């Protein structure tokens, strides 16, 4: 049994973990009442640049996502890098959500116009953390479990080399909003 020293109320505050299913319940109720709506077709296209380059990159992403399943290689064989966009403590959204989305879209367009391949998606803030424990797989709501902060979205870029990838990542508006970016090379399909 846990004994409490000094202020016994301190322990009470730390005990509760939000049930992971609660967010889904509330979200569904709000949808049913017409108070919120899921992603619209426009939002689903967020950050997704048009054209053959994006299509080729999507093909690559599909291959990456399913591991060793044979996928016809895209024509572009340049190395790919993933930009993971984190919402750090100092993150500031800006004047509006729509403005931020437009800003990120514009960045993707400018990168593509510069010759790099780019594709990206925003992520909904609804995360669960799963981890194995001696009692079995435990599922926790992300906000209760992640020390690194929320991932807002990602981009995948095709460029000549890592130096170019870093140079492009440095221009991303997410940094100006106080967020931070993890840039990682994607292992090529062998």
């Amino acid at each position: 049994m846990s004994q409490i020293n000094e202020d016994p109320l301190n322990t009470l505050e730390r005990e509760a973990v939000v049930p992971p299913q609660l967010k889904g319940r509330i979200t569904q109720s709000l949808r049913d009442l017409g108070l919120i709506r899921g992603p619209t077709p426009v939002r689903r296209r967020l950050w997704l640049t048009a054209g053959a380059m994006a299509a080729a990159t999507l093909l690559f992403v599909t291959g990456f996502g399913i591991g060793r399943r044979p996928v016809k290689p895209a024509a572009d064989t340049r190395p790919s890098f993933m930009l993971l966009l984190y919402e750090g403590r100092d993150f500031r959204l800006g004047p509006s959500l729509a403005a931020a989305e437009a800003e990120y879209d514009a960045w993707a367009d400018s990168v593509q116009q510069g010759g790099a391949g780019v594709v990206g998606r925003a992520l909904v803030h609804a995360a669960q953390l799963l981890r194995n424990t001696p009692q079995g797989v435990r599922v926790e709501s992300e906000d209760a479990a992640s020390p690194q902060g929320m991932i807002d979205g990602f981009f995948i870029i095709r460029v000549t080399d890592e130096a170019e990838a870093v140079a492009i990542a440095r221009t991303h508006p997410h940094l100006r909003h106080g967020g931070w970016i993890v840039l990682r090379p994607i292992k090529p399909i062998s």
Partner: protein
Amino acid sequence: MTQDDERLLVDAVVQRGDERAFASLYNRHTPALYRLALRLTGGSATDAEDVTHDAWVRAVERLATFEWRAALRTWLAAFVIRCAHERNRATRRAAQAVEDLAVGVDDVALRGSYDRLDLERAIAGLADGFRQVFVLHDVQGYTHEEIADLLGIEPGTSKSQLSRARRALRRVLEPPGESA
């Protein structure tokens, strides 16, 4: 996240029903709201989940009326308190109130070494009004003025309720002869 960011998220939910904006608000405030619900429902996870659910639904229904005179979390907490009160009344969870025990014990914040489960049970056994004020003040850290706004009572009433709640808890947790 600043209050300006919160305003943008609230506007996005109110004007466009933006689910992503709601998710951000949910992630930011739900852990505290759920903890509050858990305390107010006497530690029942099932009731706390239902209360948090109902509170969010009611809050989003009325989000357009929020005027930013208080912090958003305080405004949301009021829905949790209301929903918990209704649920407690419905389930008669407060039937075993220990109000009558609030006599002759020092009115000071709880200090010392208590078994957590004993403390949980003691708080759960408080009458609804006592528990609300005790949880809001001593557990959640609200001021008496904030509690007065949340519950629609006078700050003086909040103080006296807290005093009686502490006495009741002390009486339960420290049987006669063991008080400091």
